[in-house]
């Protein structure tokens, strides 16, 4: 798949390429300016770029001291977030990497500890309301007795993980490498290089980013039934894969709202199957057959027609930009209208999203999460008289409150919006939420 001409405009591909050769500080600055210039956008590209960058940051760090690693990652993370605060996945990935480092640091000590006191893992969870995990972390040189407690406190065994997987790892189920707790390496010296393990962890995150859509799609047959009418929006690849998976087995109808003006071209391309080779996404998705090739009827409608058609729709399936801890969504503009229309017609709204989009942020001021884009997409800039006299706003995202969503499907399965806080606390450690 050689591109016809050298891609001049920098983007994710050129960033990843340059990451190999450039010194680390250059790469950090480079990513910051790419984020600022919006040359890397979309959740997954941002997440991938961040994960790769942090991997290089950690491998370039010449220390094995966990606290120094954490400091380093925090400082890089802060700069990345400042560069583009509305791409929340950047913060999510940074938080997960921080969590990884903390886990490894504690597992190290756990390893020693479990040698002497083998029962600690199976200990019932003690009430730990008064425990401040960060205090425990920073005070870890005090004595070894409090450590297993604090480690558990900071990383509680959730109901979810009890069911799906015995170890409370923060990696996803189904990736075999994830089950590599340091407890199995009891003979390791105390001051071993935790970097190697953190790097492994980051690689798992990167793998997760690559597989997340397929994992979500695996649930498709549970949710899409024959002869249903499904309404969707935007050209989200997650949604497309989800539908395609179901299309392999069942026949149903898809109504696709075109999401003018910010995403309509991509949507048209998705529907008609003429998606251009998109370097940004770095994936094979763009080569797959469109839904229509599977014999699925796809109806493209303008966003304004959503309400009229909603009465016939059995299910609304939406992609998202990010998911907030209260179950609310920041999704591309137009989503809220669809969700509200669905609410009125009592149509179930299903959101498909990778766990990496799940952000521990509570939307106290959701206005600030919404990015305003290029006004000229709404009204042509060449219309001088109008440009002079009116204010044009083009919000790229909508905030969809949690009560408009009925079900989330992540790579971990389906969840009610009210349950998301639990997944948040599984994936991010408290002390990292506002680092």
């Amino acid at each position: 798949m050689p591109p016809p001409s050298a891609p001049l405009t920098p983007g994710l591909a050129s960033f990843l390429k340059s990451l190999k050769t450039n010194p680390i500080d250059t790469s950090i600055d480079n990513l910051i300016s790419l984020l600022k210039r919006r040359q890397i956008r979309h959740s997954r590209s941002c997440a991938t770029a961040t994960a790769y960058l942090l991997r290089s940051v950690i491998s370039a760090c010449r220390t094995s001291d966990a606290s120094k690693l954490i400091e380093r990652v925090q400082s890089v993370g802060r700069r990345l977030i400042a560069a583009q605060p509305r791409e929340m996945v950047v913060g999510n990935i940074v938080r997960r990497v921080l969590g990884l480092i903390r886990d490894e640091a504690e597992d190290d000590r756990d390893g020693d500890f479990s040698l002497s006191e083998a029962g600690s893992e199976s200990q019932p969870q003690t009430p730990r309301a008064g425990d401040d995990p960060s205090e425990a972390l920073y005070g870890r040189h005090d004595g070894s007795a409090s450590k297993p407690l604090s480690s558990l406190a900071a990383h509680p065994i959730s109901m979810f993980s009890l069911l799906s997987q015995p170890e409370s790892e923060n990696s996803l189920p189904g990736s075999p490498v994830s089950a590599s707790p340091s407890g199995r390496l009891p003979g390791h010296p105390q001051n071993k290089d935790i970097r190697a393990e953190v790097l492994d962890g980051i690689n798992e995150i990167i793998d997760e980013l690559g597989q997340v859509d397929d994992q979500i799609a695996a649930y498709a047959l549970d949710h899409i039934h024959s002869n249903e009418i499904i309404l969707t929006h935007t050209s989200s690849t997650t949604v497309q894969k989800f539908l395609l998976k179901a299309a392999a087995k069942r026949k149903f109808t898809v109504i696709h709202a075109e999401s003018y003006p910010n995403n309509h071209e991509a949507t048209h391309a998705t529907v008609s199957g003429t998606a251009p080779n998109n370097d940004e996404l770095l994936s094979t998705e763009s080569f797959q057959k469109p839904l229509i090739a599977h014999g699925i009827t796809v109806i493209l409608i303008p966003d304004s027609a959503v309400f009229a058609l909603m009465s016939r729709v059995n299910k609304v399936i939406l992609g998202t930009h990010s998911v907030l801890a209260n179950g609310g969504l920041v999704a591309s503009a137009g989503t809220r209208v669809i969700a509200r229309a669905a609410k009125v017609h009592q149509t179930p709204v299903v959101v498909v999203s990778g766990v990496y989009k799940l952000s521990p942020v509570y939307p106290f001021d959701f206005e600030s999460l919404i990015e305003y884009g290029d006004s000229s997409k709404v009204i042509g800039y060449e219309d001088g008289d109008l440009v002079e006299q009116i204010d044009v706003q083009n919000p790229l995202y909508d905030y969809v409150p949690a009560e408009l969503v009925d079900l989330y499907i992540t790579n971990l399965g389906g969840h009610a919006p009210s349950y998301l806080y639990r997944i948040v606390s599984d994936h991010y450690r408290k002390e990292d939420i506002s680092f």
Partner: protein
Amino acid sequence: MAPKKGGSAKPRGNATEEVEETLQAVVLADTFETRFEPFTLDKPRCLLPLANTPLIEYTFEFLANAGVEEVFLYGGAHSDQLESYINGSKWRAPSSPFKQFTFLKSTSTSVGDVMRDLDGKHLITGDFLVVSGDVISNLPIEGALAKHRARRQADKNAIMTMILREAGRNHRTKASSVSPVFIVDPTKDRCLHYEEIDHHSPESSRLNIDAEIITTFSEIDIRQDLIDCNIDICTPDVLSLWSDSFDYQTPRKQFLYGVLKDYELNGKTIHTHIIEDHYVARVRNLKAYDAVSKDIIARWAYPLCPDTNLLPGHNYELRKGTLYQEQDVTLARSCVLGRRTVIGQGTSIGDKTTVKDTVLGRNCKIGKNVTLEGAYIWDNVVIGDGTTVRQAIIADGVVLGNKCAVEPGSLLSFGVKIADSVTVSEGRRITKAPREEDGESPAYDSEIVGADGEGYEYVPYDDEDDDETASNASSGLIYNMANLSLSTDSISTLSSEISDYGGSRSGSFATSVSDDEEHDTHFVQDAAASVFDSLRDGVTTDVVQLELVSLRMTANASDHEVRRAVASAFMKHAAQLMEAGQGAGEVVSDIFGKYHEIIERALFDRDSAVKTDQVDFLLLLQQDLVHRNRGETVLLFAAKELYELEVIEEEAFEQWWADERSKNTEELQKVRSQTQQFIDWLASAEEEESSEEEESDDE
């Protein structure tokens, strides 16, 4: 352990590396214009802040966006300031997207000089971009570049691609006074002809299209709706072309026009790439500064918006109502922040102050009950209580007292201090910077800035005419130019446009005198155009004369018509030079000094007592000047110059002055009113001059 994705990305990246050609860009930091005076007296124009970010940052963003890897920056005025700024910026850091960044100093005085200098340095290896240091664009250049390269592969003579933005009929971001007209062959995107039309000219200007263009091409587009922001993709051939024509100064009016005209000669073609989306603009004057600021604040140039925080230290956030605010802004509870406002760090705004459509820089102190509307206020400005500022630009460190009023179109330059209760009237420009000519700052003018104020009014057209009559005559004139009163409500009134108004009637040779003969206008037009072109290109007198004679022979034109053509061409050229910013006296003496032989050869009454030809010529001059800006001054200078060069004799002046035809309309009277003093002086100095007069008669 490289993951799957990274693995698949890598080989692809490497494969393209070989094909990739380094894209170079030449940035002209100085565009050799004076439209940003008086601010440019202190600071280079490309460092002036636009929505609190220096202009040049936007240009570099554009280049970085376009994937440019090598940048050559040409500094002009204040290049030391520019250099130190660049050295401290992120573009020189190792993380800069530019692999090579060269700062070139030059003593050039025009774009042409820069290009020729660049050609001499042999720095350019392949296709390159030429942009000026005030371009703001979010255009990815890939498409245009790919087309350019494809065209060049097919045809070596396709040397240049201009990027133009479609913008409808009226647009605030377009240059308002002069609008460029492109004649394009849409099938090949080839530019066939280029001309600039003056918008403000009272009568409709005309366009001269070569008939051949119309007959050769089955389809042509005549487009006047384009924003030309001087982004050109050039091949190295362009540089040699600049070098070949050593007298080209400006990239459009001369270079583009010239190359297109000489297509027969050199066979080079220039193409256009017209875009219908993305933002492209140039901050070419203060009006454009106003328009582009608005565009950026209204997010037309997304992602180049204040909240993108292009500069490392910036932390703007977008609030409701297109309000961009940095951290650490102190707002009084009762102040009202309207829409489209940008407020920088450390700024404090007092009680009951209203701010609307305004850009406020960092660390400004705005008092109570202040009204700011459509103002551009840069850093560290102090505004006292009860002051009103509307549609003005207030530069760094200005102090405005209490209860002042700054009226639309005012420009307060760096460090100016206005005392309490002073009104800065419309369109006034106040500066503290030393004057360019003598390097001294004149005494502060307390009439303008108040008793404790600092600053003096900046006079943009300071013709250094040592001649006392001239300076007397000109001092009144220059300022009652229609320009300032033309001001309706916007910054367009900012005198930035003065230079454009100077000689506004291009392209209307014959109309001024065309009330008598109809049949010969054709000759007059052709001859005038020919002489005018020659004058502009600086051809020698002999050549001009030859052309004129041959034209005259073919058209069997009368002497009167020849004189008319000559007068018309000379005055048009003079007007054009004055438009470019030169003083009237200088221009006139320049032209007549160089080309007086042409006039002499059109006058045949040197020995006769009744100087009909000379009078005729003077009359024609006078008639022509009726329609031109500052015609009175030009006529005065012309009369003086013609007298000193002994082209026209004293008697002719007297006869002309007495002639009925020279005063039978009010306009004619007005034009010649200033020449009165010259005639008076002639009469008084008659005795001493008479001897010389006789000598010249003998020749």
